[in-house]
């Protein structure tokens, strides 16, 4: 079950071609979801039906790679069976681990499928080793995906105090980082990412080119207007520009991408077990571009001191090209004062 590689590269797959692309370019694991609200990328036409899932799992396993299934939204009493059914299907497909956020679902999985490996989703929002150890003791989780709010020193402290493997986000779109607890889009649309699986459900999004620029609306609410040539971001409330005290600006957060490439040696040194690439909503072209860069970078780190690590400008250029927003950031990881 455990990969011989010290750091696993975990890549997104919104479709079978994306899965194959990730594996062909060196992903150790792919993560994916079913075609419904049981995962947090619930978009029309995205994700895996039974046929694609069976073929995807076979393709990965034939090449010695792993398939992780995101089941990271929160079921409600009226749809509980859909989520437990998804756990059962995951086990039947031979999925290597399910990524869960809901403790009730963890209890179900542990009882119904004792052999099924459990990962704690970022949607679980566990940031302390106490919280992570709680999930380990009660549900036997093997890995936790950390929310993107901790500094490197804090990540190191978590790793030093838990038997649970730690996975961190390495690259991709950022949000306001209250995963599992964000109700911003529910305020505008009545649907939340935590229960319905999308921050901005497609049916509520409208783009329109107007004489003033390209306007983005969410359920009729104007959330941004882009001048010609200005880079755009995803149509989420957290990344909108709003008028506050007579000033219109990114009042919550500017669209930006996390890119921790330069921290990779540090992440390896402190014992991070896996690096996650965001973007199951993206196309195979993105998966190809990003997986190639991160595979090369991780291999460079794993080569050890014989080959000193440095970030190739071409890597950064490739990643910047596919990034959301105007800039990239090291996020909370880099707090030199900490």
């Amino acid at each position, binding site marked *: 079950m455990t990969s011989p590689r010290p750091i696993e590269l975990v890549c997104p797959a*919104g*479709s*079978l*071609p*994306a899965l*194959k*692309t990730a594996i*062909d*370019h060196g992903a150790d694991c792919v993560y994916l979801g079913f075609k419904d609200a049981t995962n947090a990328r619930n*978009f*029309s*036409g*995205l994700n895996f039906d039974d046929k*694609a899932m069976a*073929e995807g799992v076979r393709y990965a396993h034939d090449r010695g790679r792993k398939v992780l299934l995101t089941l990271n939204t929160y079921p409600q009493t009226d749809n509980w069976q859909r989520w437990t059914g998804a756990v059962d299907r995951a086990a039947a497909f031979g999925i290597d681990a399910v990524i869960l956020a809901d403790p009730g679902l963890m209890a179900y999985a542990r009882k119904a499928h004792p052999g099924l490996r459990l990962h704690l989703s970022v949607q679980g929002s566990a940031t302390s080793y106490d919280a992570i150890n709680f999930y380990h003791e009660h549900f036997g989780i093997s890995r936790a995906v950390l929310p993107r709010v901790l500094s490197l020193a804090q990540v190191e402290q978590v790793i030093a105090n838990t038997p649970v493997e730690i996975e961190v986000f390495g690259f991709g779109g950022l949000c306001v980082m209250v995963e599992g607890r964000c109700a911003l889009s529910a305020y505008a649309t009545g649907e939340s990412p935590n229960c319905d699986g999308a921050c901005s*459900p*497609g*049916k509520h*999004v*409208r*783009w*329109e*080119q107007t004489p003033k620029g*390209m306007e983005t609306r969410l359920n009729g609410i104007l959330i941004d207007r*882009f001048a*010609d*040539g*200005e*880079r*755009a*971001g995803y149509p989420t409330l957290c990344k909108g520009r709003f008028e506050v005290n007579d000033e219109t600006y990114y009042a919550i957060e500017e669209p930006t991408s996390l890119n921790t490439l330069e921290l990779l040696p540090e992440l390896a040194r402190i014992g991070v077990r896996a690096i996650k690439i965001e973007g199951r*909503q*993206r*196309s*195979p*072209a*993105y998966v*190809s*571009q990003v997986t190639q860069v991160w595979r090369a970078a991780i291999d460079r780190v794993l080569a050890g001191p014989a080959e000193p690590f440095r970030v190739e400008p071409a890597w950064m250029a490739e990643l910047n*090209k*596919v*990034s*959301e*927003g105007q800039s990239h950031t090291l996020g909370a990881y880099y707090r030199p004062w900490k």
Partner: protein
Amino acid sequence: MKIPAFTLPAPLARLGAHLPQLPPTLALVGGLNLALDRVLPRDTLEPLTGKRLLLKVTDAGMALRFTLTPRGFRPLFDGRAPDLTISATTRDYLALALREEDPDTLFFSRRLLMEGETDLGLLVKNTLDAVDWDSLGTQLARFRLPLPTGLHTPAGGH
């Protein structure tokens, strides 16, 4: 193959806008109908039925209007407001078709615009992304459908 950056000369767009749109629309619709049921799953695309779709090729001045009916894709001849409009240049459509570019990347850099019912656009994008050309290669050969250059990769490719 990597498609170089190019935009058709501006006079071409002005000229193209005055040319009949039916021939390119028929070519597009004909291609889509060949793909329907073989490459493109009809049940997945069912929400497009009766929806007015408009594909704008901005640098060629082309505006291709069509819809999906129970008997396949059909051109539309009137100028009524579309339910979904997708706009991009010739080069970027080609790059999307060959999976050299990611639509979100083009959207972020303002080279791809999707107006109208976004859910329909996501359905189209994700359905095209899910087409597994590697597996379909042999089936398509049986129907004597040529694969677009660059999509036909050798075994073990991607």
